[in-house]
């Protein structure tokens, strides 16, 4: 409560940057780089200021409309702060990657910064009202970015995006109104506490009848669209493919985490027993997301759609971990499994964000060099003319494949460690996902980098110094997290323990 309102500053800073960028004309990218750079520094500062016991820290509270249960309430724990850091990194990467925006650069970078603000806001808000504002408002810049700078077939993409997100948001909204009418509170802390004692369910049932399960389904639907979970995912390949690649980096790297974050911050704490009740169908959908996501990726010809489906697959592991741990834990063994799964899920969120954003960045680089080509069969033998590009993109691809020593492995290992004892059938079937993902990624490498060099790829320019400098920290981060995951887990694990202690299934 006391002290400098650093989280408010974090959220306002990109908005201020956006205002400047709008009028900065062709210097907008510079403004955006400076803003996102400072934001990243601030986010890392937030990360270092977390309380050691895993509780929520850096709290800011101010009365807003108390009679409506609306309060300005910000704070972060290990989960929120990690997502803030991830959003800051991914936005910086995206701005870095977007150096060919000739059309209205002021508006473009302004929107990107507004989006960053939305991300920061939704990862730090602890009251439903303004969390929902940020949740919805972050969509607007994303929508414009796709709509105005997107590819040729953005029409159908927009329809799906629209139908899905609206349906999801309406479901969320209705569910939360019901909760508010029953409890008079919109505060996450307060509601989590009520839920952990069973009071929430009693209140809701007393006011509205036996609707808790339906509310849980509504909330889950809202997040399932965002993550996305099969079958709520069909907006994603189109949106990811039609958005300009730097925007796709934001969509997959940061915005997809809003859904997983929502599950962990809202759905599980408030509706634990209901989710445990429908755990089996949810696990089926999570496994389907893992397996069918990977397999659908195998059928794609467009690199962006391949990586889009791989994103579905990788976030499927998060869903798998979350739903698997939604059981009443009996004994230390089950608690250890829950802790493993939850640590794994949070690591996977971060790692997927970094890796997927990097992959779409590489697609952007391929597109820039070939006049927009991004088909899996459009290239060949690129290792010869562009060995550095091949090496760095290879590392990112193997990180996505889950190779030990790189970041992707750690989260997946902990998820499987946690899920197997809690839901062994789901864990076993999901192994198919690991296999199919590997097949997809090796096919990409084979077709893009190996084989003879086709004529139009002969003069393919390798990465220049600026690109190497920009990409090196990202690749370095993949190695660092892969080798020393404790750097992140150190701050995440106390939060995991803290969260699990407050959840009731």
């Amino acid at each position, binding site marked *: 409560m006391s002290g400098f309102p650093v989280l408010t500053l974090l959220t306002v800073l990109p908005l201020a940057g956006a205002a400047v960028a709008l009028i900065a004309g062709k210097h907008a990218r510079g403004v955006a780089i400076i803003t996102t750079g400072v934001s990243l520094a601030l986010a890392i500062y937030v990360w270092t200021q977390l309380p050691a016991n895993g509780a929520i820290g850096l709290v800011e509270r101010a009365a807003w409309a108390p009679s409506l249960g609306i309060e300005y309430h910000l704070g972060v724990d290990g989960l929120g702060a990690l997502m803030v850091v991830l959003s800051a990194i991914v936005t910086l990467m995206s701005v870095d990657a977007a150096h060919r925006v000739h059309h209205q650069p002021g*508006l473009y970078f302004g929107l990107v910064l507004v989006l960053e603000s939305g991300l920061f806001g939704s990862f730090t808000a602890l009251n439903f009202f303004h969390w929902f504002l940020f949740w919805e408002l972050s969509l607007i810049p994303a929508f414009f970015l796709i709509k105005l700078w997107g590819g040729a077939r953005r029409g159908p993409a927009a329809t799906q995006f629209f139908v899905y997100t609206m349906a999801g948001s309406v479901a969320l909204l209705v569910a939360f109104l019901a909760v508010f009418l029953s409890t008079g509170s919109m505060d996450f802390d307060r509601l989590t506490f009520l839920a952990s004692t069973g009071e929430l369910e009693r209140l809701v049932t007393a006011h509205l009848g036996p609707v808790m399960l339906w509310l849980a389904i509504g909330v889950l639907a809202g997040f399932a669209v965002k993550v996305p979970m099969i079958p709520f995912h069909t907006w994603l390949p189109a949106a990811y493919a039609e958005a300009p690649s730097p925007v796709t980096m934001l969509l997959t790297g940061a915005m997809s985490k809003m859904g997983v974050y929502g599950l962990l911050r809202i759905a599980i704490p408030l509706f634990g027993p209901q989710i445990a009740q429908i755990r089996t169908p949810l696990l089926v959908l999570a496994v389907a997301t893992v397996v069918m996501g990977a397999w659908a990726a195998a059928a794609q010809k467009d690199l962006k759609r391949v990586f889009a489906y791989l994103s579905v697959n990788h976030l499927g592991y998060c869903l798998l971990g979350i739903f698997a741990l939604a059981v009443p834990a009996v004994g230390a063994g089950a608690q250890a499994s829950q802790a493993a799964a939850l640590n794994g899920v949070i690591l996977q969120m971060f790692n997927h964000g970094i890796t997927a954003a990097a992959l779409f960045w590489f697609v952007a680089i391929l597109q820039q060099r070939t006049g927009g080509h991004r088909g899996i069969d459009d290239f060949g033998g690129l290792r010869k003319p562009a060995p550095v590009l091949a090496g760095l993109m290879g590392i990112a691809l193997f990180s996505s494949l889950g190779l030990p020593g790189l970041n992707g492995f750690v989260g997946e290992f902990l998820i499987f460690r946690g899920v197997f004892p809690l839901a062994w059938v789901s864990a076993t079937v999901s192994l198919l996902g690991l296999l199919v993902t590997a097949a997809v990624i090796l096919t990409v490498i084979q077709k893009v980098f190996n084989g003879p060099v086709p004529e139009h790829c002969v003069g393919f320019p390798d990465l220049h110094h600026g690109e190497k400098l920009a990409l090196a920290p990202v690749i370095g981060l993949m190695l660092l997290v892969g080798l020393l995951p*404790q750097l992140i887990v150190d701050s995440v694990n106390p939060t995991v323990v803290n969260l699990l202690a407050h959840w009731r299934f």
Partner: protein
Amino acid sequence: MLMQEMASVSFQPTTNCGPPGICDYLWLVPAVPIIASGVIGLLKQQKRRTAATLAIGSLSFSLVLALVAFVHVVAGWTHGVAVRETVNFTWIQFGASNVDLGWVLDPLSAVMLAMVTLVGLLIFIYSIGYMAHDENYTRFFCFLSLFAGAMLGVVIANSMLLFFMGWELVGLTSYLLIGFWYQKPAAAAAAKKAFLTTRVGDVFFLLGIVWLFAQTGTLLFYNNGAGSIEHGALAALLAQPAALGLSAAGAIGLLIFAGAAGKSGQFPLHVWLPDAMEGPTPVSALIHAATMVAAGVYLIARVYPLMQAGALAGGTTTPLTVVTWVGAFTAVFAALIAVAQNDIKRILAYSTISQLGYMMAGLGMGGVAVGMFHLITHAFFKALLFMGAGSVIHGCHEEQDVRRMGGLRADMPLTFLTYAIGMLALCGFPLLFSGFWSKDGILEAAQHWSVAKTPFYMLVFGALLTAFYMTRQVGYVFFGTWRGKKPARESPAVITAPLTILAFFAMALGLIGTPAWPWFRGFIESRAVPFEWHGFMEPGLLALMGTSTVMVFLGLGLGWRLYGGQAPKPEQPDVLEKALPLPWAWLRDRLYIDELYGFTVIAFYGWWARVADWLDRRVWGGVVAGVAWAFRGWAHFSRFLDMNWVDGSFDKGCEELASGGGLLSRVQNGRVQTYLRILAFSVVALVAILIWSSLP
């Protein structure tokens, strides 16, 4: 409570290294080559000498350290101490539990370290000559060093997870090196096939690791009695029923074996290894003959207490029985295919698969020492054979078809001599050659196996086949007259010197594993071994040695009779092909296993991918389209309602935002306004409902 426990976790390593503390520094053995690899990776392609020097220098360092460690363990053993020193540390902490890594120095890791560094170094030196004219020479040494480091990491691992990490990393380097000539589509395809086939085994292995970890709470092999393959954990695993009458120990053992089978080319996951011969020959020698493919065997040896858990005296367990049958079947199956191959490296590749089957069978029936002894001797003579084959290929101007060679014993005398030693060692020629002693150890174990005698007969038959296909190959390559185009020439000393050293080991290593003085077995099992001539006099042993000798001579004689004088010309059919055309065609076409997979697994993969895609586009997409259509209808219906409601400021703001002329028209035509209108509507509705509901 959890918080207090967590605070007590220390990330400091716990060590039980005895003086002089060699084990404390054992991590340098893998670390130095990996660091060297990183440095080489950053070098410019022109820095060829620096790259080779760094790679060879770092591996020499590892060799010295490995030998010091080896001597340390041997010294402990001669003083009656069973050395098992470990260093463990926490890598990740979750909840109140840990993911631990660590390394171990015991006879098993010591002997493997010595072998891998020694054979590796010889192959590194050989590569200077073999790869001299390759444009990616620097990158080759980068990958080779990375491989050596990863493999050595596997060897010293005291943690299931560290083992797996090294295991996957050797898989990666194997992938990179098979596909080293990436512009050849066949090489790129073979690399991918190798990675994916072994990954099939690896996912089961991963499942086994996760299961073991969840059950025992630790990933460490040895941890002062609290490790996952030590007594306490094993007793708990045995008490835990899994399925199909297996205990958890049995089920986990089988899962781990699936991983081992993938890496070690056991049927039915062997298909990648022959294709892996697309890589440069030093790679075939190092990775696909001596070290990486043996890692599966080493894995079974490492977790042997788990594989053996629950066995009564003289009895066996389900995992070990499976290991035995798969190994014995693979041994014969691959040897049969080797008979009908014409590519010099593919013959050796099938031979490697077959010999790995012997090792597995040896582990299954005879224990760690029996399987490991064959692993060590095989590493030397198979590396020798591959490098000899490389020398031949080099001498014959990159020709690999044995039908286009011939009479090379005169043109390449040193290569011929060393190759013959390797060949005789592989065939198990009596007394003088290491392969004889290590293979007889396996046959002896098979003879006494309590479950069935069939594996014994299979392995004896395999010995005959081995002698036969190797004689056929040597007959084609070194005897008869030259059938190629340009005349062959002997290779330079940088290639032949490593051959000579390996040839020495291919003979001398037999001395440490004779029945009279089973030094190796004693060392691995940490018990004293006096020298006793009457070791040969054990009942049945001489008869067994006689049997295997007869088989070897039968194979050699038959081979010599058919291929010794003058092998057929390239365009003529093989001698056996004329006699037995149909079986020959089956064997030549590798018994159609690849085709079978093409029809089943790979076809299913492609078909199911299309199903997934179709579901997405048609079924889920169709539902969405339907909903969208309904929404649109609703939107038209209520159009004027919200026009009057939310018209002004919001829409106008958006229009001003996108005030660029071209942009404006695009926005207006899209569905943006509808979307924003509904968004704004929901926020307004939220506030309205809140106000309404909170009124008294």
